């Protein structure tokens, strides 16, 4: 892709420069700056205005200018990435150059006339611009989605849906922006600055969102940790379950939003234990009816605590149902298999897995293999077999190790004679 893109650039840049050197420099600078000012919409997808300027270049100066305008993009990518910067720069430039080229081909094929303001702002002209924008965006998205899907184990279609859900509005807006920009260049180039203002506001909002989203997650983690502190044995449990659940959701090909929800649900699944006395949580051996009744309240208490947080609606369901069983024998509601969502099934299995592979006051941690075997044994009745299989693969991939609390680290292994 890099090579094809560089080839395209080699063909178009000289032509564009001969046509109008100033305009070429301006558009290369605009696209480069737009890339430098991109804002993330999820941690691995950025939204930028590159496409608006490429499209404007197409409307104002034609295919050569559009392709040539992507020439500086690679610079930003190279500066941003320390590792494999050359490959990334080439692939990104190539990707944009090719999508610009495809957009230009579609525009010309549809009968579009670059540089003719009257035809651009006519209804047919808008249709031609729309077609070019669609083609350009499609190639652009497919390339990005394919790269990300590979990385996150998402299905390409799911990544595309998630990207579209976050940026579809922006894409519609792009077409309008490009037309306005092309017109403004003819009317009053100074007015282009006015066009940039709302876009800067959008960028400001997205950056603020990113910052706030990170602050939010940190706050939730702090609360969860605070609840765990009083019980030394479950320390870190929520964090581990959150991490594994997110990975299992990814392994099962769930879309990004669901992976995030699995993480939050897992992080918060035991907040309801705040209302259960320590002596019950840590009691060695079987619980009496009273104590068990107490333990059984924690999913409901947790869900009640979190019910007013709209963003976490799906996570609250996980909290409420993470002790339900597929055979209907779980608590608090004795739900049947069809009423238990996949994300809940994931957290249920991961919760049990981490509990087994962590040491408690009254027992040692189980080896990873033994815990997985136990999950397989209970699959069907208690756990979802596909989830257990996915967890098995994830655990093998990340090299999961059992968690020991300090006082258990040496003693148990020596006592059982398994150690070196």
């Amino acid at each position, binding site marked *: 892709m890099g090579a094809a893109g560089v080839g395209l650039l080699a063909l178009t840049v000289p032509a564009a420069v001969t046509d109008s050197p100033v305009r070429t420099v301006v558009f290369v600078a605009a696209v480069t700056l737009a890339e430098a000012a991109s*804002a993330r*919409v999820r941690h691995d997808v950025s939204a930028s205005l590159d496409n608006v300027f490429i499209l404007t270049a197409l409307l104002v100066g034609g295919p050569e200018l559009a392709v040539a305008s992507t020439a500086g993009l690679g610079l930003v990518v190279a500066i941003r990435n320390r590792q494999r910067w050359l490959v990334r720069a080439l692939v990104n430039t190539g990707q944009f150059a090719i999508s610009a080229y495809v957009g230009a081909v579609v525009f010309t094929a549809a009968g579009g006339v670059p540089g003719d*303001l009257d035809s651009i*702002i006519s209804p047919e002209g808008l249709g031609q611009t729309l077609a070019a924008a669609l083609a350009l965006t499609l190639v652009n998205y497919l390339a990005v989605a394919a790269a990300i899907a590979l990385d996150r184990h998402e299905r390409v279609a799911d990544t595309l849906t998630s990207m579209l859900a976050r940026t579809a*509005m*922006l894409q*519609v*807006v792009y077409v*309008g*922006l490009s*037309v*306005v920009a092309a*017109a*403004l260049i*003819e*009317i*009053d180039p*100074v*007015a282009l600055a*006015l*066009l940039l*203002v*709302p*876009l800067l*506001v*959008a*960028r*400001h*909002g*997205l950056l*603020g*969102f990113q910052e*706030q989203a990170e*602050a*939010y997650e*940190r*706050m*939730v983690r*702090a*609360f969860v*940790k*605070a*609840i765990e*502190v*009083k019980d030394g044995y479950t320390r870190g449990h929520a964090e581990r379950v959150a991490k594994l659940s997110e990975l299992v959701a990814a392994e099962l090909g769930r879309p990004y939003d669901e992976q995030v929800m699995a993480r939050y649900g897992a992080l918060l699944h035991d*907040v*309801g234990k*705040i*209302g259960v*006395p*320590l002596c019950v949580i840590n009691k060695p051996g079987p619980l009496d009816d009273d104590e068990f009744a107490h333990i059984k309240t924690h999913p409901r*208490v947790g869900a009640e*605590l*979190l*019910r*007013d*947080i*709209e*963003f*976490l609606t799906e996570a609250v369901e996980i909290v409420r149902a993470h002790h339900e069983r597929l055979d209907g024998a779980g608590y608090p509601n004795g739900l049947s298999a069809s009423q238990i969502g996949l994300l809940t099934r994931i957290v249920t299995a991961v919760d049990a897995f981490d509990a087994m592979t962590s040491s408690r006051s009254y027992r040692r941690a189980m080896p990873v293999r033994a815990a997985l075997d136990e999950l397989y044994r209970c699959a069907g009745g208690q756990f979802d077999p596909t989830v257990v299989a996915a967890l098995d693969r994830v655990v093998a991939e990340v090299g999961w190790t059992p968690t020991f609390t300090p006082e258990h680290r040496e003693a148990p292994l020596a006592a059982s004679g398994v150690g070196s």
Partner: protein
Amino acid sequence: MTTELALFVVAAAIGELLPFPKPRGRDLSISVAVVAASALLGHAVVEVLAVAAGGWAVAAVLRAAQGRSLPLTNLWVATLGALALAGAVAVGRSIPLPELRSGMSVGALAGVWAVILLALPAYEAVSRAGSPARLASSYRTVVRQSAGGAVALASSASLGAIAHGVLGMWSVPLVLFPLLAARVGLARYTQVRVTYDQTVRAMSRLPEELGTVRRGHGVRVGDLAVAVARELGLADAEVTEIERAAHLHELGQIRADLGQPLADRTVALAGASILREAGSLDDVAALVERHRDPYRLAGVGDNAAVSMGARIVRSVCEFDRAAVDVPDGDGWQAIEALHQRSAYEHDPRVLRALTAVLHRQDRLGVAEVRSHA
């Protein structure tokens, strides 16, 4: 002309349906930009008003079709705004200033920017202030909070008016495009801010699950502390902080085991250390940490380390604890208990404000009847 006016009305309706959301306070209607563009293009006052009111009406009908409603306040805000914008354009045009290349009057543009950035926030400021004393601080807050969106609205309106000469009526819907882009960013920001607030509120119920704090204490103290802080004329940013601190002041209780309450001071310190971990709540943590300290020290005088916010949370918390124990919710007895310890523990200024708030909320009524009898 009529087609164009219809187009303006449709654009205003879209703007009314897709406002810039704000984390707290009124949403900012995008229709303002459409109305401003109409004024800039020299439409008659009646037409500008028709765009504003017509946009609201179309939007209201569309909303009603979905079984929801559009607040009537939006109509007043839109029409008042339309009048202000038309007036500002007329005044601006009469000022002899150079024109842009497109023939647009710089004076008229300046008038529109001034109205959108400075005059429109006044409406919300008035409705939010509650008392004349707080008007200035509330106005500053609203202007600051709306600034980003307002700048986007003003520049889009200017843009639409400037492009109109060449694009004709196509410039009207195109005014909306950059604004819809801005909206995507602002909406996401607002969503996470709202979630943040909802989560703080939810976490206020954590200690209540332990049984050492009464149900609803955190939320009640939060609501009352906000009212007292406003009564004392504190700035909005501070009020928000006090609200969060009030919601979370008992958080340290979660370090205790069931049914074994910790000393108040221990709770304050433990709560503050948890909040510091949260990263973005340092100011709230400082408030929570100090909220059990005396506001005056013997031999020293005013204890500057205890902020007004900490004093408010302290007194409101103890009022809430005492008030629940009193039959018929008799606020006087609870207040009296606080007054008796006003030399060091409870700042009389806070108690005065608290009394005034309770009086307004009719929570002191029972005792008054008794004292007359």
